[in-house]
């Protein structure tokens, strides 16, 4: 199994030279994206076949001569491989249509299959060396994709910050694996499992730093909203929907598998970070009016939700409550799957809008539901799914997380008893704010009237893009209606990590899900869906039959004040103003200034909104300033005289000899 997977990854890498050659030709993108689509589908099938099969390993004589590279495909790896390649297949299908508008295909096409291969190789890796090589390969190829349109100043800065954060993350991961390997230096994961490292706390914190920065935990998220929007839309979807999940895989592998038995206070750190991430992510997203940046910040919120599930699972595992840990872990992993599906869908929609209008800024869009009806429909399904509305899939993972929180009073620790209700409140708050965010995103972009001529002229997306988006939207609905199948697919992975699995869901009558016991709670998405559809159509047909079905078009009522200009509609900023006033004054120091010219002056009055990113100002800006100052001071070392250089060498030699003399 794993050898087949590796062969397909090698095939993906083999597409890269083909891409370099055919990039500028007319059919280049069809060849490259088509081949990537085929490879991703093959890997997806392999992953699905391996979900219930026993783990398979392989050792290849690549890499360091005396180490070799180990690869393994177990249940957890199969799940994440399936998630990665589902996203990859959808993105490849979408890109066949979207890539037609790409202005610099030679900068995008070669790196895309490399990116896909890198992500799959991270999930397959079974020793620290191949893991880190694949991780860096994934980061570098995505960096190259972010820099594809490097002439835009914002993109250049985004790529720079991305590179720095990725390097810092990899450094943390190197330290993590070093601590796990211990002084004997066993680099394979099997040896690390057996070693039972003493530095579990440091390992977990470093893993949070390394994997968390790639996933987007606050305060390590700053690169994400810069880099994700800068890349082409199908790559943004892959970075937000899939690469962050590879980072989650890294954390799960280290925190649940390699580090051994967890200690209870680790879960407190994870839960605290996750709760803050969830709320901060959605608050940032609400303040944005760039559609892709809004989606990128929203990824941060969903990563927070995933880590809440993971933190609860760690807590339950530390106290030896395997069924509850299985529930929490299932909730987190199901959200991994759900988020990759609907976030990819939303980024594809944003890409379609960008292609059709040339605009990413919501303040320049509007009324697109009339010009792009199918894109609008699938985007609406994505918005409803991400806002956790039944009967779609976002609600199922959120429901499972709430059920896991309701099991938490059994945890004996006082700290956890205090922090879990607070995290529950933060989760509920972030869910409500997410709904607000997507009312804004969909409403300002697609509804209303067109605010610019570009929006008024938009054309519908091509059929490949629509096919990819439609497939993902259908998957959202299916995963919401019959979630039991997906929960059962997760069960082997969950069982391997916490020692127990949830009861089989597929056999429950009427396709409900019953996570713990029938008497506790259950949910049936199919019935809810059928009830709503039936009562809606019943009402519609009854009314049309017995009352009236006449309709007449007229100008809008607007309380009798018809305004012709579309500029009087609510904009994205004005929609978010009440929430900005309630939450933003504290979290972002949001201040509004009205500059009023004196009477008689014909200049317009201006309203300026001042937002400060406190994370950047308190952590990164001082850090960058400190590095600058240190570099300035150390710069003096460049301009010493010969005598001073010689004295430096002399001093170093004397110090080393002193150390040698004094050291016992």
């Amino acid at each position, binding site marked *: 199994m794993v050898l087949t997977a590796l062969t397909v990854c090698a095939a993906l890498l083999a597409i890269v030279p083909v891409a370099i050659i055919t990039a500028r030709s007319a059919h280049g993108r069809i060849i490259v994206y088509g081949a990537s689509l085929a490879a991703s589908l093959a890997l997806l099938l392999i992953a699905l076949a391996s979900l219930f099969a026993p783990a398979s390993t392989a050792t290849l004589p690549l890499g360091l001569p005396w180490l070799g590279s180990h690869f393994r495909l177990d249940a957890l790896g199969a799940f994440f491989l399936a998630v990665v390649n589902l996203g990859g297949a959808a993105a490849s299908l979408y890109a066949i249509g979207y890539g037609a508008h790409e202005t610099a295909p030679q900068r995008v096409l070669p790196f895309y299959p490399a990116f896909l291969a890198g992500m799959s190789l991270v999930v397959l890796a079974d020793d620290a060396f191949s893991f880190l090589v694949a991780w860096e390969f994934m980061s570098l190829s995505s960096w190259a994709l972010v820099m594809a349109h490097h002439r835009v100043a914002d993109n250049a800065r985004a790529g720079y910050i991305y590179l720095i954060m990725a390097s810092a993350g990899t450094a943390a991961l190197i330290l993590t694996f070093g601590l796990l390997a211990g002084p004997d230096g066993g680099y394979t994961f099997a040896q690390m499992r057996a070693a039972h490292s003493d530095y579990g706390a440091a390992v977990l914190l470093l893993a949070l730093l390394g994997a968390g920065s790639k996933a987007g935990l606050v305060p390590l998220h700053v690169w994400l909203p810069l880099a994700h929007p800068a890349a082409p839309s199908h790559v943004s979807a892959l970075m937000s929907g899939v690469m962050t999940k590879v980072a989650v895989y890294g954390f799960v592998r280290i925190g649940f598998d390699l580090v051994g038995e967890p200690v209870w206070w680790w879960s407190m750190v994870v839960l605290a970070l996750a709760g803050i991430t969830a709320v901060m992510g959605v608050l940032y997203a609400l303040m944005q009016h760039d559609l892709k940046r809004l989606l990128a910040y929203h990824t941060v919120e969903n990563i927070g939700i995933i880590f809440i599930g993971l933190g609860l699972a760690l807590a339950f595992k530390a106290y030896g409550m395997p069924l509850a840990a299985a529930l929490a872990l299932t909730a987190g992993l199901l959200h991994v799957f759900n988020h990759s599906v609907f976030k990819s869908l939303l980024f594809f929609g944003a890409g379609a809008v960008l292609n059709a209008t040339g605009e990413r800024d919501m303040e320049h869009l509007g009324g697109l539901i009339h010009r792009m009806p199918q894109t609008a429909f699938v985007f609406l399904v994505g918005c409803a799914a991400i806002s956790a509305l039944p009967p779609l899939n976002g609600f199922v993972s959120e429901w499972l997380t709430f059920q896991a929180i309701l099991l938490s009073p059994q945890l004996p620790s006082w700290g956890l008893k*205090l922090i879990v209700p607070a995290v529950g409140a933060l989760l509920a708050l972030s869910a409500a*704010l997410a*709904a607000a965010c997507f009312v804004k995103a969909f409403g300002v972009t697609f509804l209303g009237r067109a605010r610019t001529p570009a929006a008024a002229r938009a054309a519908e997306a091509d059929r490949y893009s629509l096919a990819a988006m439609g497939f993902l939207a259908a998957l959202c609905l299916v995963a919401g209606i019959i979630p039991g199948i997906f929960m059962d697919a997760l069960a082997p992975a969950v069982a391997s990590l916490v020692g127990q699995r949830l009861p089989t869901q597929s056999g429950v009558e009427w396709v409900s899900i019953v996570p713990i016991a029938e008497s506790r709670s259950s949910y049936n998405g199919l*019935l809810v869906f059928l009830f709503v559809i039936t009562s809606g159509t019943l009402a519609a047909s009854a009314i049309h039959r017995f*009352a009236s079905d006449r309709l007449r078009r007229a100008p809008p009522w607007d309380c009798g004040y018809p305004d012709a200009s579309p500029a009087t*509609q609510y904009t994205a900023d004005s929609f*978010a103003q009440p929430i900005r006033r309630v939450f933003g004054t504290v979290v972002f120091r949001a201040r509004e200034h009205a500059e009023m010219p004196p009477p008689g002056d014909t200049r317009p009055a201006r309203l300026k909104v001042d937002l400060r990113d406190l994370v950047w100002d308190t952590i990164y800006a001082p850090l960058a300033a400190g590095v600058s100052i240190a570099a300035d001071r150390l710069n003096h070392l460049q301009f010493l005289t010969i005598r001073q250089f010689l004295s430096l060498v002399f001093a170093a030699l004397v110090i080393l000899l002193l150390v040698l003399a004094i050291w016992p």
Partner: protein
Amino acid sequence: MALILDLAVQGAQMLLVLLLAPLLTGLVRKVKAHLLRRQGPPLIQPYRDLVRLLRKEVVLAENASWLFRVIPYLVFAATWVAASLVPTFRTGLLFSWSADLIAIIALLGSARFYLALAGLDVGTSFGGIGSSREVMIASLAEPAMVMIVFTLALIAGSTQLSTMASILISGEVGLRVSLGLALIALIIVAIAENARIPVDNPATHLELTMVHEAMVLEYSGRHLALIDLAASLKLLLYVSLIGCLFAPWGMAAPGTGIAALGIGVISYLGKLAVGGILLAVFETSIAKMRVFRVPEFLGAALMLGLLATLLRFVSGSL
């Protein structure tokens, strides 16, 4: 036989909530009018309004989309399904296992999501005001509601409404501080969600004071009738919820006969009447808040819910 009876009870519940909703709205209006020393409209006026609206032609804005036309049916369907799952005169509804209290709240949340989209659809500034204020209120009311659900679920050991109602009827819970806090928080959330004074005035069309009315300003005819009916259903749902959870006496248990069902219906009607009168008295005795005082009001409800959940986490006897 038992299955047929259960099915009949569920069907009766669905029809009952649909028929009683406008009557509750009419009762509240009548009592408010009497408190203000007016006669007020007759009790059945909301039914007359609905029939009148249903028969009228819909006047649709020129740039309203297909979504605008579908949303009233969606909102009505979601609210009706949610209202049918809240036990009114009998616990143990046939389909209560398909959607627990969290799912019911999420259904109401989806109705609100679509209604906010409808406000933005026509592209007027009134719709924008309504939608933006509505999502601000929802961003605090919904977490408060979730915290209340947590408290109740931690007391009753389940999130299913029928199970909660059975446990609260049986009296083994007794008086709990967290139940008291949850009740106050639920009343505050119910007032906010139903757009009642002091959060929003259901009878105004002044721009400064509209929230719910601003979102549905462009609707007319049968669409407006459905949205009004959905709003009445939502009010009935919340009053039934408070009655089912905090005053559950009189509800029939599953498997009892027609006499117990009759007592259940009568006690439910009594609870609705008491709830309507109390709401009318409360609305008359307090003034509407400034818009930005509402988040503080709802923040208080969120804090109370959080405090109630915290007390349940910390101690079994609180």
